[in-house]
C-alpha cells in the first residue's frame, strides 16, 4: 500500500490529521490539474476544495484496492467535467469594469516593471498554452495534463479515465499532434 493510501485508511478510521496530511500532499497537484482542465484559477481552487470535501464525505467507503492518486484524480476528472458541462449550459457573462478580472494571469505579481517585453512574451505564451489545452477534447486534455504535469504512467491514466492503456496512447498521439499545430508560432520562435 502506498503512503497516501495508508493516510486515507487512517482518515477513514477517524484520523483527521491523516486527512490533513493528504490535503497538504495533494492540494497543489489537484489545483494545478483542475486549472489546466477548466482554465480558470478561481474555479480551480473552488473545485479542488469540492474534491477534498467529496473525498472526506465518502471516506467510509474507501477501499485501498488501487493507488489513492488514481481514485483522487478520477474524482478530479469527474468534478472538472461536470463543471465544464454546467458552464456550457449556463455560460457566464463576464462583467469587466477595468478594476478586476477573473483571470489568474492578472493576479500574478507584476514582473513587467523589470522586463516588460519579456513579461509580455511570458503572458502570451501562457495564454497560448491554455488555449491549446482548451482546444483539446476533455479526455485528451485530461490524459495530457496527467501525463505531462503529474508524470502519471499510461496504465494509471487509463484507470482514471476508465479506459484501456491502448486508448490512452491513442488519445496522447492525437493530443500531441493538435498541440504541435496550435503552438507552431511559439515553436518557430523557440528555434530562432
Amino acid at each position, binding site marked *: 500500500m502506498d503512503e497516501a493510501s495508508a493516510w486515507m485508511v487512517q482518515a477513514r478510521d477517524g484520523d483527521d490529521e491523516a486527512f490533513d496530511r493528504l*490535503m497538504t500532499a495533494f492540494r497543489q497537484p489537484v489545483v494545478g490539474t483542475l486549472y489546466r482542465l477548466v482554465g480558470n484559477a478561481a474555479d480551480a481552487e473552488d473545485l479542488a476544495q469540492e474534491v477534498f470535501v467529496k473525498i472526506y464525505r465518502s471516506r467510509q467507503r474507501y477501499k485501498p484496492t488501487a493507488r489513492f492518486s488514481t481514485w483522487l484524480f478520477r474524482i478530479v476528472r469527474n468534478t472538472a467535467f461536470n463543471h465544464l458541462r454546467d458552464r456550457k449550459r449556463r455560460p457566464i457573462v463576464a462583467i469587466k469594469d477595468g478594476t478586476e478580472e477573473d483571470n489568474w494571469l492578472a493576479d500574478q505579481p507584476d514582473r513587467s516593471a523589470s522586463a516588460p517585453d519579456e513579461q509580455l512574451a511570458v503572458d502570451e505564451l501562457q495564454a497560448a*498554452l491554455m488555449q491549446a489545452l482548451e482546444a483539446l477534447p476533455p479526455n485528451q486534455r485530461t490524459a495530457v495534463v496527467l501525463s505531462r*504535469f503529474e508524470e502519471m504512467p499510461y496504465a494509471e491514466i487509463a484507470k482514471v479515465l476508465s479506459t484501456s492503456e491502448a486508448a490512452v496512447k491513442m488519445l496522447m498521439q492525437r493530443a500531441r499532434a493538435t498541440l*504541435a499545430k496550435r503552438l507552431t508560432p511559439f515553436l518557430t520562435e523557440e528555434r530562432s
Partner: protein
Amino acid sequence: MTDKEKQAWDLLGKSEAPQVDEGFNQAVWEQLKDEATSARTPLRLPFVIGAWVAAAAAVIFCIRIAFWGPRPSDGQETPLSQEDRAIVAHLELLENMDTLEHVSLDGNDEDQQLLLLLADMAGDDR
C-alpha cells in the same frame, strides 16, 4: 513523436498553475464544519418545534384553569348548561300554550292557576 510535437510537449511544461497554501486546508475544514452543522439542523428542528408546541399548550391550559376553573366532571352541570336547560324548557312551554288555551280547567289548585296565568301571558304576546 515528431520534432515539433516534442517541442510542443516541452513547451507545455512552462505552463504555470496557481499556488495554494495552508489556507486551502483551512477552507476545506470550514466547509466540512459548515456542512456538519447544516446537516444536524434538520434533525433538531422537529424536537424544537415539538417543545414550542408543548410549551404553548401548557400556557393555554394554565390560562384556562386560572380564568374558568377546572373542567366539570361527567354529569356535573355548569351554570351555563343549567341556564340552557331552563331556556329550552321555557320554549317548550310556550309552544304548548295553544293547547293550554283549550284545556278545560275544573280544578283550583296552584298548578292549574299557574297554567292559566301562562296561557294569559302567551295570549298577550300574540
